[in-house]
């Protein structure tokens, strides 16, 4: 029974995520207005037939800003997680495979990175560099790989004791071949779960940064900076806050649900 409910949720989450992807990819086709074009005549209008999500204080259509913002937010989410996964994969695999002093050094590095409150680290770096989209992607990725590294390392530690690895060694396979062809494909599954959950986190982080003004800079829309715009007019124009907020909420929720569902399916079933 529980499985059915969870699966329905996962299905809904998947549908929502796909809807967001379509929205992002087909934004020009789905929106009537350019996200950056201002219209002084329709400043802060409530949701209506012309502007289904209303307009902001520069007269820009909120719906199209959210649609184009989806591109930014989702792209940042995916690429940041992609960067984190690659870094985590490599570090975890090398630490797990070679063991000894290499493992020790790498894991202490992971520990050090984990000591930093990520948000402050990101804030510090962004304030030194310019808050470009690329920088944001890289910095979120570069501060989010530690969990994946530990997961991968744990997987590799058990995997490398298995006979098929010994057989490969006897066959003369080099370390690089063993790590890339044998260990990593078998260690990927928990990474998928971690990555899916991570996308939600990355989107949230980007939104927070943009909300604080050091993320995506206007006029480029991102869900976070639409929120930032809405701060000053919260009492008057609820749509500036509610809509981007809902999108962030449901997107992050969907990725989390999907991630949990993936974790449930990849968990070993009842032992015989």
């Amino acid at each position: 029974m529980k499985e059915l409910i969870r699966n329905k949720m996962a299905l809904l989450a998947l549908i929502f995520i796909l809807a967001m992807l379509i929205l992002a990819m087909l934004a020009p086709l789905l929106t009537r207005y350019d996200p950056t074009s201002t219209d002084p005549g329709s400043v802060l209008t409530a949701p209506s037939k012309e502007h289904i999500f209303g307009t902001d204080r520069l007269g820009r259509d909120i719906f199209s800003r959210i649609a184009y913002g989806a591109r930014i937010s989702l792209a940042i989410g995916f690429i940041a997680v992609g960067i984190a996964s690659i870094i985590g994969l490599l570090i975890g695999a090398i630490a797990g495979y070679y063991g000894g002093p290499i493992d020790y050094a790498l894991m202490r590095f992971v520990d050090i990175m984990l000591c930093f409150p990520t948000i402050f680290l990101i804030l510090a770096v962004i304030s030194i560099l310019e808050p470009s989209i690329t920088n944001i992607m890289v910095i979120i990725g570069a501060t989010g790989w530690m969990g994946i590294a530990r997961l991968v390392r744990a997987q590799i530690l058990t995997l490398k004791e298995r006979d098929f690895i010994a057989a490969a060694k006897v066959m003369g396979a080099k370390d690089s071949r063993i790590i890339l062809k044998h260990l990593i494909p078998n260690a990927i599954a928990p990474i998928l779960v971690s990555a899916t959950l991570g996308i939600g986190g990355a989107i949230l982080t980007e939104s927070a940064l943009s909300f604080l003004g050091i993320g995506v800079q206007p006029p480029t829309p991102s869900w976070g900076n639409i929120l930032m715009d809405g701060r000053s007019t919260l009492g008057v124009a609820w749509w500036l806050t509610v809509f981007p907020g809902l999108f962030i909420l449901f997107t992050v929720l969907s990725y989390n649900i999907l991630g949990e569902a993936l974790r449930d399916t990849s968990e070993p079933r009842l032992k015989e």
Partner: protein
Amino acid sequence: MTMVRCEGVKKYFKSKAGTVKALDGVSLEIRKGSFFGLVGESGCGKTTLGKIILGIIEPDSGQVVVETKKVQVVFQDPYNSLDPKMKIFDILAEGLIIKGETLHAIKNKLMIVSSLINLPIGALKKYPHQFSGGERQRIAIGRAIITRPELLVCDEPVSSLDVTIQLQILRLLKDIHKKTGITCLFISHDLKVIKFICDHVAVMSRGKIVERGSVHDIYASATHPYTKALLKAAAYDNIKNDGI
């Protein structure tokens, strides 16, 4: 004429409980072309010795000389010895890919080996989990012999299998040995299996070799008390002979 020579091989494992003498001065000689059995109960060191001969572990002292670099292995657990994410084609071809053979040559050798190990048609595209234990073990053997090794180390290759399948696999190994003259080191705890397939045997207990000789001699006139105990215990698995 000698394929493997070990002199005074020692291997210790340190743990919280103390030092375990896995191998305590083992010397043996395996002649080229022989089917050499290494028998003993759990913990006697036979698997450790096998891994040292394979080069997977280093001995702490003593000498190990293997006259060839072309060594392959077949492990005990067919559910663990094949990469679950690889197709059978890739598993069988891996040894040849590492050697840098052409795709054409690989396909040819794969065909020969597939028929030798009796692989069902269409198996090459499948994954290990789609096969039974016996079939996987045959694939493991195929993987081992496709590179034409001169020495094959088998570590309890039939212990996890049902008795009818055991016989199949043993017959396959015997067949390969006859056709290619490959030298085999066969590690097992089961004397009956050793008797079926090996020509020489060394009996191990607690890290030492307690007796060695031809299988025929050991069975007919074992001298060491441990060997005798093993033989007696093995007879327990024999079917009681009334009426047969």
